């Protein structure tokens, strides 16, 4: 039996997420797993934008910031349930991406890089400076999602770590499923065509402008949801979530793992989320090792970790 790449990817993801807890020596690992999933969702958005459509963003953390602060602010000021606040954040992020994307996406390469960078910095600056609303750099508290309590009443008693592991894990699978559907749809094919050559795609009648904008908006929504989940999970949020380093982290995770495929990018998210946990052994060398890993992978495995590993495997088969 031959599985389609889409089914295979989803199967691998479901198995990994479902079976990993069997190996967890302590509850702490649920927490790390949930963090990986939060990053995996943002990175899936980057796959759509960079891997499929070939566009760069150095400011996607801005959307994560919108998602995160929507969950912190909307329940307090609008009386919205945190779950609905997450939806609101996603809608605002999508709208923002739609408005900003129109002029920005005409730019190419490094120019697109600096424009998205500027956008991200503006968002993080507002979050840092509007103290009376956001608490400034000190951050602010985020209300409880309340779902764990409901589950408990229904007879399913999970620890906080377990709850967020499963909740975010399911979100990752849904996100990956949507991205893979897009990949196989006519829109996805058109996106990949424009990645290959914008002019060629335009020549055969692809509406390049509309498609790029679509990819930008979708990836912004992914980033926003990821930010919301991070905020709800930590019950606390600081403007760092919208900072430049977070934007870079997203892109690095995706590219390090292999930005061309959802599985590769999620693998990258797992590696880069785990790395600091492992690197604490190196204590003061942590930063240097991190920088070194980034450089070495990009120099020797420019396609990303997962595609390179898979290729080695296939070669082994022959």
């Amino acid at each position, binding site marked *: 039996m031959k599985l389609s790449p889409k089914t295979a990817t989803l199967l691998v993801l479901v198995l990994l997420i479902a079976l990993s807890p069997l190996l967890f020596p302590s509850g702490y690992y649920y927490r790390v797993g949930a963090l990986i999933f939060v990053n995996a969702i943002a990175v899936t958005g980057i796959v759509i934008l*960079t891997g499929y459509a070939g566009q*760069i963003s*150095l400011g996607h953390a801005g959307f994560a910031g919108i998602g995160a602060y929507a969950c912190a602010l909307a329940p307090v000021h609008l009386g919205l349930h945190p779950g609905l606040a997450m939806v609101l954040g996603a809608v605002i992020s999508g709208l923002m991406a739609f408005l900003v994307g129109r*002029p*920005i996406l*005409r*730019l*190419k*390469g*490094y*120019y697109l*890089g*600096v*424009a998205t*960078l*500027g*956008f991200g*910095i*503006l968002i993080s*600056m507002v979050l840092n*400076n509007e103290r009376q609303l956001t608490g400034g750099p000190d951050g602010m508290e985020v209300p409880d999602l309340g779902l764990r309590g409901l589950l408990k009443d229904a007879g399913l008693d999970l620890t906080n770590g377990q709850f967020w592991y499963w909740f975010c894990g399911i979100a990752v699978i849904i996100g990956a499923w949507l991205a893979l559907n897009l990949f196989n749809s006519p829109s996805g094919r058109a996106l990949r065509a424009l990645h290959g*050559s914008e*002019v*060629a795609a335009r020549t055969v009648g692809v509406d390049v402008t509309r498609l790029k904008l679509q990819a930008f908006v979708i990836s912004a929504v992914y980033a926003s949801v990821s930010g919301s989940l991070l905020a709800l999970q930590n019950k606390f949020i600081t403007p760092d979530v919208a900072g*430049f*380093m977070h934007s*870079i982290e997203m*892109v*690095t995770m995706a*590219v*390090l793992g292999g*930005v061309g495929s959802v599985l590769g990018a999620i693998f990258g998210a797992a590696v880069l989320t785990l790395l600091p946990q492992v690197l604490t052994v190196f204590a*003061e*060398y*942590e*930063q*240097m*090792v*991190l*920088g*070194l*890993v*980034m*450089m070495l992978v*990009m*120099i020797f495995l*420019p396609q990303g970790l997962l595609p390179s590993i898979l290729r080695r495997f296939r070669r082994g088969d022959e």
Partner: protein
Amino acid sequence: MPELLQFLFSGVTVGAVYALVALGFTIIYNASDVVNFAQGEFVMLGGMITVAAYAAGVPLPLAAVIAIVATAAIGVAMNKLAIEPARGAPVVSLIIITIGASIFIRGGTQLLLGKQIHTFPAFSGDAPIRIMGATILPQSLWVIGGAVVVFIGLWLFFTRTLTGRAVLATSNNRLAAQLVGINTRFVMTLSFALSAGIGALAGVLVTPITLTSYDVGLALALKGFAAAMLGGMGNPKGALVGGLLLGLLESMTAGYLSSQYKDAAAFVVILLVLFFMPQGLFGRKSTERV
């Protein structure tokens, strides 16, 4: 009026630093099409190495020279070890490589020289000079003067010397330059040395005013990158104008509007400029061959 003059002085001082960082971006970009996000770390290294050498008892001028030479050597090493092996990699990978290099350099500096904020004495004292009711620090004049000397020196280098023209030829068309016998690998090495050295010089000049620590590089890299893009990447004139414009915008916003949002004004202007002039102010209009 003295107020405006005061903001002008501080804007030009900061702008001169941005212009030097942007120039560093431009030189490397021209030679290799790489935007080097570690450029800010060169500025940091210039300041930090001078601090370390000065603390070890080396006289200040010699300490500054040591810092500039050492930083240039680090730039060359970065080119040889990280950029050359990745030739032809996509833009995103190159961005990640240079950001990896900058994290590496930052981590190394923190390890060797510590986390403290440092400074060393200003070159010509700290007594502010009064001009028409506004004041300027003697060190600011050093910064502005240093930038002027660098820009004139580079202009002479690029237009009057054979090596300089070889660099220009390489940036115009790498293959054609190779065909007429220009050693483009040497040009790349030279560009990294030059741009690291210029960054370090900026760091040496500005440290007595702004102080330095292991983590000042990133912010400078972002501003320098923004200034270079504002002027039009790849054009030294653009780097100069972009840097000064950014510095002035910041000091005027801080002075007249809000000091919290001084960085915002700069990025709003950059976004606006790019909307109307996607190649920056002085960028070459690029035509894509299909």
